[in-house]
């Protein structure tokens, strides 16, 4: 095996493997170093298997209400083990897919843990690989606990998403700490599988980075399903016993105890910057612990680039992939278009789904922008009524003067698919008028987007 390449990518997750493919497409000799399975957290213990489980949860949810639709399904029984095994199969298929893509593009895959060395070199075991153009660091992130309050991940009673994804059986009850995308999705899954779920969020509302109205809809929907939602909550102490965990929670001036068979830690992730050889190569970190990069994603050491979670927030697969493409194109001597970090869609695949792009209404207020919020509820949308999925809305925040789409928020079934209309609109600087002018098929949930655009101009038609 030759030990010299144009580009060496450290990490085969969605940032790294996409960077490798794009590099190979542009004629660069490329290698990827991966210590586990190709596809990284996203494919193996993140995005992909959770979507499989969420669909299981969705089916259970549908069957419960199937009678109203004239379908009698008998008594609905769920088996997490079966759902989990299916999700593993899906993850494996995806990982194999990445392996195939590496072969297809003649990318060398080195199995092992890589450590950076000065001179654009990476050591894996006893072998040293050398990059002629650049080393791209895409080591990603991992789950983390909160040891400060006694919540260190022990994989039995204090677990992370890693364990949750591989359980054979669900616990009787589960406290989830953190109501961002991960916490929200697991609350949805476990609740559908019959677990008594308590969702605890430190910030004043669940889905704290989303628009407040999105949070409200989800809080209501979750409570209706029997999920105990506690926001603005401080977990002051945790008592971890062999078969249960007791949490001291303070919320709204009240103190209470939450007892659960297990606690799922879903509050943030730690970046994998340790034992990579960063310091030895002169690669500095930011105050928040990410790798410091310039606008071309080059680190403080020339010839070393960082992409994906290690390069800074938002820690999202699609943001990492785009960074991978950008760096590959730079290395091939192209002039890629800069990444618009303010136009990265944010999606949570709970039910109803939450998707957004751009600013929230609160951010518009903070920035003192002169905006108008156009809103259309799915309860007024024909397609949504047909499927019985009338929870949620489309909200478009329109700049008053020029009609710019400052932000857009969708809560509802298929919100994750629908947000891209507005992502394309923003990327191309369409105003609300262009969004309305594009004819939307009837009946679709996407009509609500056109209606929200119209509403922002004061002329919604169907409400």
């Amino acid at each position, binding site marked *: 095996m030759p030990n010299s390449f144009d580009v060496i990518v450290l990490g085969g997750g969605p940032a790294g493997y996409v960077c490798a493919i794009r590099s190979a497409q542009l004629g660069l000799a490329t290698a990827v170093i991966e210590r586990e399975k190709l596809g990284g957290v996203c494919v193996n213990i993140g995005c992909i298997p959770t979507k499989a489980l969420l669909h299981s949860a969705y089916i259970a949810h549908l069957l419960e209400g199937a009678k109203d639709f004239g379908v009698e399904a008998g008594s609905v029984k769920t088996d997490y083990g079966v759902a989990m095994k299916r999700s593993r199969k899906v993850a494996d298929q995806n990982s194999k897919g990445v392996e195939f893509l590496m072969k297809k593009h003649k990318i060398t895959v080195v199995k092992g843990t890589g450590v950076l060395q000065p001179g654009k070199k990476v050591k894996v075991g006893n072998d040293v690989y050398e990059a002629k153009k650049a080393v791209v660091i895409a080591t990603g992130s991992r789950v983390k606990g909160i040891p400060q309050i006694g919540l260190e991940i022990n994989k039995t009673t204090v677990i992370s998403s890693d364990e949750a994804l591989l359980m054979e059986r669900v616990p009787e009850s589960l406290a989830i700490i953190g109501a961002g995308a991960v916490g929200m999705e697991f609350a949805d899954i476990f609740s559908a599988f019959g677990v008594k779920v308590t969702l605890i969020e430190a910030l004043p509302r669940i889905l704290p980075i989303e628009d407040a109205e999105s949070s409200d809809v989800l809080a209501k929907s979750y409570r209706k399903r029997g999920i105990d939602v506690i926001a603005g909550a401080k977990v002051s102490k945790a008592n971890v016993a062999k078969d249960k965990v007791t949490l001291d929670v303070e919320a709204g001036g009240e103190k209470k105890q939450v007892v659960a068979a297990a606690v799922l830690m879903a509050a943030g992730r730690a970046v994998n910057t340790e034992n990579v050889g960063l310091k030895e190569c002169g690669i500095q970190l930011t105050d928040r612990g990410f790798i410091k990069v310039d606008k071309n994603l080059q680190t403080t050491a020339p010839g070393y680039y960082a992409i994906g979670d290690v390069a800074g927030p938002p820690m999202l697969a699609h943001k990492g992939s785009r960074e991978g493409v950008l760096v590959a194109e730079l290395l091939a001597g192209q002039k890629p278009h800069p990444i618009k970090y303010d136009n990265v869609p944010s999606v949570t695949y709970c039910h109803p789904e939450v998707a957004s792009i751009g600013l929230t209404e609160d951010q518009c207020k903070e920035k003192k922008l002169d905006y108008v919020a156009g*809103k259309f509820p799915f309860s007024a949308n024909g397609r949504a009524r047909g499927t019985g999925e009338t929870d949620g809305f489309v909200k478009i925040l329109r700049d008053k003067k020029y*009609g710019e789409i400052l932000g857009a928020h969708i809560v509802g079934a298929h919100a994750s698919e629908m947000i891209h209309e507005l992502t394309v609109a923003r990327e191309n600087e369409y105003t609300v008028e262009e969004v309305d002018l594009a004819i939307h098929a009837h009946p679709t949930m996407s009509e609500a987007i056109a209606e929200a655009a119209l509403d922002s101009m*004061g*002329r919604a038609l169907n409400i």
Partner: protein
Amino acid sequence: MATKVHMEALSPTMEEGRLVKWTKHEGDAVKSGETLAEVETDKAVMELVARADGQLLKVMVQEGSTVPVGNVVAWIGKPGEKVDGDGAGAPAPTPAPAKPAASEKAPAPAPKATPQAAPPPSQAPAAPADATRVKASPLARRIAKESGVDLKLVQGSGPGGRVVKRDVEGAPAPATAPTAAAAAPRPTRDVRRTDVPYEDVPLTQIRKTIAKRLAASLGPVPHFFLTTDIDMERAAEAREALNKQLGDAGGKVSFNDIIIKAVALALVQHRACNAWFQEDHIRYWNEVHIGMAVAIEDGLITPVIRNADLKSLREIGAEARELANRARNRRLKPEEYTGATFSVSNLGMFEIEHFTAVINPPEAGIVAIGSIAPRAVPDGERIVVRRRMRITMSCDHRVIDGATGAAFLRTLKQMLENPLAMLL
């Protein structure tokens, strides 16, 4: 309800106009079709006419102000009628470009507002019909329109050079200097010793257009030049004879007329040079319309002699003089300075021997005419003195190749050296 008077696009390339003079004043009765004001466009001084009957209620723009096309400049309505919206209370704009009144009220006030709040698309003024299309995002277009930024002058930083929001946000608004027609600072003709080393003169509308059009030519148009020396002895003789014939009847034939006629006739034989480059195609014209560069007060303009190949020398002469006169007074209509298929630029009267002219796109060629002067030339074994003229053709190589241009010039030379050939 009172009717708005908009700054109209009075020429095909007009993007803003300077209100030179109000011919009607607040309180005057006006009829539809009556002239309200004189407006200097990028090409000429034109008349802005009323589109409604009534009283001129309010004038929104002071004389001397420059206003983007589409902006409200006045209101017409019934006597005593209140001018609604921003018209009423709004102070008359300073000579800075008027606030885009129409668009200011465009955004809907609140999400639950009544439907009328939205701007009906029909309010949008017709976009100036310009051949040069600008790639720009809808948002950038809107910002540019409302803040009076000329998108054509903005460097795009988006994909493929597309003009995006950040480009127009940083772009300067149009010149805001008070440049009333009468008070417009004129470039001084000669250097004066003063205590200031230089004088900054704002670009006039026409100077802006010249800058844009000519830079758009020499940059992207691959020019090449062909020069030939022409014996004008017989043309001079013919001209003298013709003018003698005309006597005091007026309308003497000039060399310029003869050259325009000869160029037109030569083009009839060389259609390859009578063409427009149209980006994805070449338009070969079957009619010959000669643009004639005319120097005016602070620029130049190219009135067009249509179907010059079919007109007599007398007709050409009369038309050329009349057009040139009106051009100098800035009274040309748009159709009188657009649509040329080929141009002639003559600096002979300035005793310029030889020069090159810049092509006026989409035309593919222009001939630059030098002075007619006696010169010593060999005639067999002898040296004789003949009246000679040097002309240089600028060709757009995308349309005209060297040999093509040369063949045209040879025909032109033959026609001028033997004016009788023009009668064939």
